[in-house]
């Protein structure tokens, strides 16, 4: 098995090639992209990026994306925390069914909800606001958040809770002062997963926005089709959407494995 340690780098290299190609293109001019075939940009240019940064619709939609992703993440974690605590600590009427029901939402096809969502959010005046997208995404992120947090919380001995109650802590005070610090890493991992889902999802985000709250990923496709395949700008826009993910994952890298160890229901 001497060769096995080269397998991982090999896979990583192979999986990086398509991304490299995108990055590479983003630094090329359209002439170079369409003209001769080159592995590296022969005359690296930042024009594609400056096109994006000088156009306010790009930066605006970038901000839009960040806004609804943040709302969704905060909201999901906040409501999931008490629920995950309940699932990890108590048995109660219908707990198993409730848990299953939550999970089925994680599994439901977004396409099913396209139209109803559109109608729902239009009727309550949230259409084309970050709130519509954030709320729609909670359908998927909240169950996930409950699931992950429950796993983390189950690892905290229940005796700590009991000692706190005996000491006279109120639930709220105990939860904030004692319990939250213990599941800090769990909260981080959960936030990461919520962020991840909300960031990568496009179908609902596109359906629930038109102009004001348009996410970056949508702006990207639309601008490109309008400009008639401006490959360089498309690639640059794509690269820009990779960056938040890469940053966030850098923060939680040491917890990723633990976060995925949600092998428990």
């Amino acid at each position, binding site marked *: 098995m001497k060769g096995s340690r080269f397998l991982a780098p090999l896979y990583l290299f192979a999986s990086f090639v398509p991304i490299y190609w995108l990055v590479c293109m983003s630094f090329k001019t359209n002439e170079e992209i369409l003209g001769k075939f080159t592995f590296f940009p022969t005359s690296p240019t930042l024009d594609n990026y400056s096109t994006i940064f000088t156009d306010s619709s790009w930066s605006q939609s970038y901000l839009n994306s960040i806004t609804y992703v943040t709302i969704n993440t905060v909201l999901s974690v906040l409501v999931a925390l008490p629920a995950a605590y309940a699932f990890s600590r108590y048995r109660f009427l219908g707990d198993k069914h409730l848990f299953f029901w939550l999970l089925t939402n994680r599994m439901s096809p977004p396409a099913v909800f396209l139209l109803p969502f559109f109608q729902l959010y239009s009727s309550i005046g949230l259409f084309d606001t970050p709130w519509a997208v954030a709320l729609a995404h909670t359908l998927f992120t909240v169950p996930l958040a409950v699931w992950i947090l429950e796993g983390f919380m189950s690892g905290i*001995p229940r*005796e*700590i809770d*009991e*000692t*706190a*109650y*005996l*000491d*006279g*802590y*109120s639930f709220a*005070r105990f939860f904030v002062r*004692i319990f939250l*610090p*213990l599941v800090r890493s769990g909260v981080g991992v959960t936030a990461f997963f919520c962020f991840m889902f909300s960031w990568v999802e496009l179908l609902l985000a596109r359906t629930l926005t038109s102009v004001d709250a348009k996410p970056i990923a949508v702006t990207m496709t639309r601008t490109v089709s309008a400009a008639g395949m401006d490959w360089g700008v498309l690639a640059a826009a794509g690269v820009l959407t990779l960056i938040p993910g890469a940053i966030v994952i850098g923060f939680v890298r040491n917890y990723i494995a633990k976060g995925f160890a949600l092998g428990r229901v």
Partner: protein
Amino acid sequence: MKQGIELDHVTRIVDGETYLSNITMTLEPGGFYVLLGRTRAGKTSLLRLLAGLDRPTTGTVKQGGVDVTRRAAGQRNVAMVYQQFVNYPSLTVFENIASPLRLRKTVSQEEIDRKVRDTAKKLRLDALLQRLPAELSGGQQQRTAMARALAKDAELLLLDEPLANLDYKLREEMRVEIRRLFQGRHDAVVVYATADPVEALLLGGNVIVIDEGRVIQRGATLDVYHTPATERVGEVFSDPQMNVLQVDVTDGAEKQIRFADEVQFPAPAHLKDLPASAYRLGIRANHVRLAQVAESDVRVPAHVEIAETSGSETLVHATHGKTTLTAQVEGVFRVAPGTKIDLYLDARRLFAFEPSGRLAAAPRMDHGTH
């Protein structure tokens, strides 16, 4: 608190399984109670119920004369120390100990500071106050948990096998301290659960023997030790396990006791009055010897199974027919499995139990004083 704790017909059943069965008893204020029972006997269930963490299925709990059956744990002024080392991981040792005091709005900052330092000193934690629990050894973590319980001045102090998870040397040192720490509290009820008879004896006070969710005997610790009401109490309150011999007591010119066909001996004085019948004789391992000391000693030939030694003592497990007997002897004694030896049972130390398990006769207590 003048009236202590009163349990009235308390039963706890969860999912059809009985954890506690019809317990009625009073724990006097200032009393130190050792709750003795094997694993899963119901010790933890009883403590949790006393703490208010669990509710009885039926029955009532009164604390200081007031019915607290439905009162939340946080309102009962109870402290509990668990077998696991339970502390607040994100708070320093100081804050851990101070935490119950801080929640009581009436205690001033200086008062808290003084109290925490006093308690920490008693538990030899004074140098560690600024550490986090994770930076402490197991023994220190458990001291912190105890300090928190002590500093609180609770009316009811519950300890659930607090030493069970410590290495034996540390356990040895700490159980001496525990009595010193918890016994001088005349205002509170202290309940200390343990599975270890030696611990129970060391702590003294009163013992409550619990088995399968029932209280099977209670009383002054030494009295219960010397006069177990049933064979089961004897079993639970002996370490190593009490030896039990199935015998027949027969009348004749002189009352005789017969064990497994080959062994027959005259009934010792304290068993003379037993009516002829089948009995189960119990004898603790330290009254089984490898050499004859008294004339009345009963010789039982046996095959050695194993000799376990801790240095100070050696337990020789041996079989006679289908009966396993254990002898406890001083010092290191090595003998190979399978060796034939003679065991000598001190007849004056035999307990007689009826087949139902009830005590029929116990050794006389004055006896054996050197």
